[in-house]
């Protein structure tokens, strides 16, 4: 499709380029507009949110929306909850799925194929299917209204299989010579993994880390079922609970909380997007 490279068609290619930009700009709207609208509307007074005709920028800038974010709920604590859970999930997912992915790729051990097939099959059992037994087990262990299920499920549950798969694909294409040289020097297999293979797996680490973080950060169904008190809420749940006492939604407060949830992560993404996208591009999911 890189027809514009052909010099014979330069005139046509300028037209193509303009068409392309127009196309891309138009395509950007549904991706960009909601986030921008959310951000700007959190600075609107409540009655401007459904103003006709609708506006993107506030007519009158106000911080009213943010004022109640922190008083209506322990929002800072909820922010902390989401962050620490996501941090644990990210680090543990990277470590455990890298170990498993490495073993599946490089080490022969009993039941390897059975175990790998089992893992792929388990991808088809989402938490939505198994929530009832998991709910009763969590209750039986007294872990209701704690963060344990939100930490354990994404790290070890069926959703983690994709991470293992990404690492396995990565380590399959990792040059064996590096390892063999080290092993001839007397480095143990575990040493090879921790000192050589893992440090060289940066793209896979980036991909799995990002996916694990987002998975944890987006976890809503499990949070809805297991968390009960506001000080234990994660951000996703918290955003849905901005109601005044009479059950009426506090719109601008809700949008303020949503913006505060989204913007910092978006900024991190913008800064690190090169690594972000490259990491994902090299997940091995491209076959």
């Amino acid at each position, binding site marked *: 499709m890189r027809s514009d490279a052909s010099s014979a068609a330069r005139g046509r290619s300028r037209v193509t380029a303009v068409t392309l930009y127009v196309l891309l700009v138009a395509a950007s709207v549904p991706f960009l507009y909601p986030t921008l609208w959310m951000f700007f509307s959190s600075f609107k007074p*409540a*009655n401007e949110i*459904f103003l*006709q005709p609708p506006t993107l920028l506030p007519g009158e800038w106000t911080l009213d929306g943010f004022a109640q974010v922190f008083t209506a*709920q322990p929002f800072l604590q909820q922010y902390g909850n989401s962050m620490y859970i996501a941090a644990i999930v990210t680090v543990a997912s990277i470590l455990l799925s890298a170990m498993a992915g490495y073993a599946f790729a490089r080490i022969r051990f*009993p*039941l390897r*194929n*059975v175990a790998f*097939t*089992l893992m792929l099959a388990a991808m088809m059992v989402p938490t939505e299917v198994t929530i009832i037994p998991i*709910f*009763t*087990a*969590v*209750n*039986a*262990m*007294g872990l*209701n*209204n704690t963060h344990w299920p939100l930490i354990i499920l994404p790290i070890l549950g069926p959703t983690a299989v994709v991470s293992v798969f990404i690492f396995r694909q990565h380590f399959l294409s990792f040059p064996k010579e590096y390892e063999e040289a080290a092993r001839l020097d007397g480095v143990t297999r575990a040493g090879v993994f921790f000192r050589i293979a893992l440090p060289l797996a940066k793209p896979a680490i980036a991909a799995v880390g990002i996916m694990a973080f987002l998975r944890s950060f987006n976890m809503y169904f499990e949070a*809805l*079922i297991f968390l*009960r*008190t*506001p000080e234990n809420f994660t951000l996703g749940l918290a955003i*849905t*609970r901005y*109601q*005044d*006492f*009479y*059950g*009426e*939604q506090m719109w601008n407060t809700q949008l303020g909380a949503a913006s505060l949830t989204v913007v910092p992560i978006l900024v991190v993404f913008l800064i690190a997007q090169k690594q972000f996208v490259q990491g994902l591009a090299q997940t091995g999911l491209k076959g």
Partner: protein
Amino acid sequence: MRATRYRGAAIALTGVLAVSLSACAGGDTDASGPADLKMALWSSNEGHLALLKKIGDAYVAEHGDEVTSITFEPVTNPDYIAGLTTQIAGGDVPDLAWIPEASGPEFVDSGILHDVRDTLKDTEGYDLDDILPAALAPWQDDKGGVYAYPFSNSPFALYINEDLLAKAGQPDVKSLVGTPNYTWETITDIAAATNSKTGAVGLNVPTFNPTNWSAVTMLGNAWGAAPWSEDGATCEFASPGMIDYLTWYQKQMSRGAIPAVSGNAAPAAFASGDVAFSIAQLSQSGSLDDSFEWSFLPLPAGPKGYHPIVGQAGVSVLERSKHQKQAAGFLAYLTNPTNAELLAQFFPPPRQSLLNVKTLSKAAPKLSPEEIQSAIIDVVPEAKVKPQHPVLSQFSDKVRAGLDPVWSGGDVKAAVTGICEQISPTLKG
């Protein structure tokens, strides 16, 4: 693939894990000695929590030998009852809980609530007979057991944004009260006119979203409509009264008197100043400031006359609480005449002795004595509660789904007939 060879081993392993998983189940704690009580409630309002905590602390100070602490835990799930039942199903049972009236019969019937009649009766100075019989009835079984104290017995009323109506050049609604012209027809005419002149919302029906159909159907009383028969066994959604009511409602939506339903989103808040009329309870006046002038009036009449409605919430002791006795003792204290008067600050009390302008003026200082008299005190004795049914949760979603076409302008008759077809087997039990 050597899969088959190991399949047996994999299955065996699975079995072992299943056993170990279920062996992790925790044991029960004992019920003797002083208790730490936990009460689940819907509100996370600071004022409410502070008041409850004050009453709780006073009780602990007096009865330290029975109760060492009382914790008030808000369940802030917008679907409160789903949050509470999930909690109970999970075995994490609070000792006391607020129960909304719609779930009352279901909870009483399935034996989740503890009978507190004897405790209340035997508590000195409690005066169980002071509680309005109509308010207590939803919380009683055939044998006269009492399963909750209806701590909030709050009539629905019509809030009016006077400034907005004046701006839209509409007539004075307040002066219509008590005249034959004070009807839903008049109010919706004004609502539609205000909407078309100012773009503001005409009439808000309480916390109206598609999942809250019971709040909408309750107004049907004034059309002679009820969702099911008194005994709960027969579906009456397809009755002429209900069809009239829903057709009327549809018409109001199409002419802009009542806002259209938008997915799961709530309508504009009355407090924002952009709503002409709102049907809500007394406690909502707490969220209104002086930014516009408003009034609080009784509900207007429909084609079948004037049918006031109350919204209720009860406080119950749960049967599966490990400290029933201590919890019942606290319930008797929390709702005795003295504390009921304190609670009246937020929730209209079900006690005859407190139903007077003096007590209620404290509850809603922003209301005039006339408003309290006409929209609350005169209303409570004859008001009905919202529709209730002992297996409501089993068919509630089907009604919600069945009514959806009505809100978007579909055929009313087909919709209600469909609802009755679907829920009749469940209603009959």
